[in-house]
């Protein structure tokens, strides 16, 4: 049976924790609003880019197509680009992305393919390092950036393009969490090299005029598409992270409240039991006289 002082201490510490989780929830809610706006504002550009690319790609075919669309003709070496958060305490956010990446990596390995992993974000790196320490070729740290933006995405895209041009891998897949709502974030895998041409885009039969020429346009457009898709992943991730943190902290606050209630009842009960016991002692002492 814990003493009254123990119980008081325990209640005080749970209350302190509750204050922290409450504060974290509110911070996450404020950040979520900005992150969500950024993610939603970036969507139209990425979508239009996809449409334009799909229209263009239907025009180029065969061996003349650039390697970023057609691929290298092999899928032996697979690159997984895993985007996660830099901070924890956001529910299953990081682990669900890492799990998706891990399953994919294991499946590819079972097929006898080589897997290379680039981690963006410390948390995913920490999780994947345990199992794939030898496959991780780079860890990109974005901790110093308060708000990820175009510059970050461009740097990552440049890095990947250089590797691709050096023939370090054949296929690249991007892992991130799509922001659906505060309570629903969907871990997603998206193939970025060769570029994924969305199925079912209506084929415009129009034959395009190109200015300057087709090859040159695709040459600038494809790397740019890569940047945009990575940027979109980063922004969706930022919104998902805050959403996940908000709901995780909300339930933590609620759990703390429940615990406080339970402990308080226990505290009051044992206090009353003590008083009753003392009264009995006094009365029976007086009777004995």
């Amino acid at each position, binding site marked *: 049976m814990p003493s009254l002082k123990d119980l008081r201490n325990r209640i005080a510490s749970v209350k302190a924790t509750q204050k922290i989780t409450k504060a974290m929830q509110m911070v996450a809610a404020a950040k979520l609003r900005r992150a969500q706006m950024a993610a939603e504002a970036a969507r139209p550009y990425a979508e239009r880019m996809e*449409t334009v690319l799909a229209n263009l790609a239907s025009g180029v075919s065969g061996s003349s197509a650039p390697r970023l669309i057609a691929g290298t003709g092999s899928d032996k070496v697979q690159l997984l680009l895993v985007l996660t958060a830099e901070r924890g305490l956001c529910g299953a956010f990081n682990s669900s992305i890492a799990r998706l990446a891990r399953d994919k990596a294991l499946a590819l390995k079972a097929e006898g393919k080589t897997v290379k992993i680039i981690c963006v974000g410390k948390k995913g790196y920490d999780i994947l390092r345990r199992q794939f320490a030898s496959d991780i070729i780079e860890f990109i740290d974005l901790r110093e950036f308060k708000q990820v933006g175009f510059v970050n995405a461009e740097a990552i895209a440049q890095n990947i393009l250089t590797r691709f041009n050096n023939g370090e891998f054949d296929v690249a897949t991007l892992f991130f969490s799509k922001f659906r709502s505060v309570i629903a974030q969907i871990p997603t895998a998206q193939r970025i090299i060769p570029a994924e041409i969305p199925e079912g885009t209506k084929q415009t039969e*129009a*034959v395009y005029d*190109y200015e300057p020429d087709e090859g040159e*346009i695709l040459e600038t*457009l494809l790397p*740019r598409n890569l940047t945009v898709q990575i940027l979109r992943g980063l922004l969706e991730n930022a919104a998902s992270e805050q959403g996940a943190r908000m709901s995780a902290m909300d339930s933590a606050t609620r759990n703390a409240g429940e615990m406080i209630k339970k402990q308080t009842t226990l505290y009051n009960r044992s206090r009353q039991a003590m008083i009753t016991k003392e009264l009995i002692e006094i009365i029976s002492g007086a009777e004995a006289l």
Partner: protein
Amino acid sequence: MATFKFELVSPERILFSGDVVSVIVPSVEGEMTVLAGHAPLVATLKTGIVFVQTTESNGKEFFVNGGLVEVNHETTTILAEQGKFLEDVDTGVLDAEILTVETRIAGAHTEEDKKRLHETLVQLREFKHVFEQRKAA
């Protein structure tokens, strides 16, 4: 007047979306005007001003820095690498942009990158010149 659907999108936001009569686009091979029924076209853009003429207003002007325009039978879309309302642009913004490109040239690794960035720089300087003259006039 015949109108067509036009969208101007930058990575941060949609700058314009709606029906327009004509759009003047700064393509790399010179300015061109897109009217309804224009032949399908894809062109890359240089630094410059996009002039949008709608039916009711006197026209809107936007600053774009690189990107591409796609014209097809239904819609015209500009994907700008960087886009702003022209009212939000002043010499300070342009100078800041020129400075970023200059630092990036200094940090560029390959000759190809350097050449590409240098082209952007030339375009920006040219645009700044034009912009200042416009303001003076």
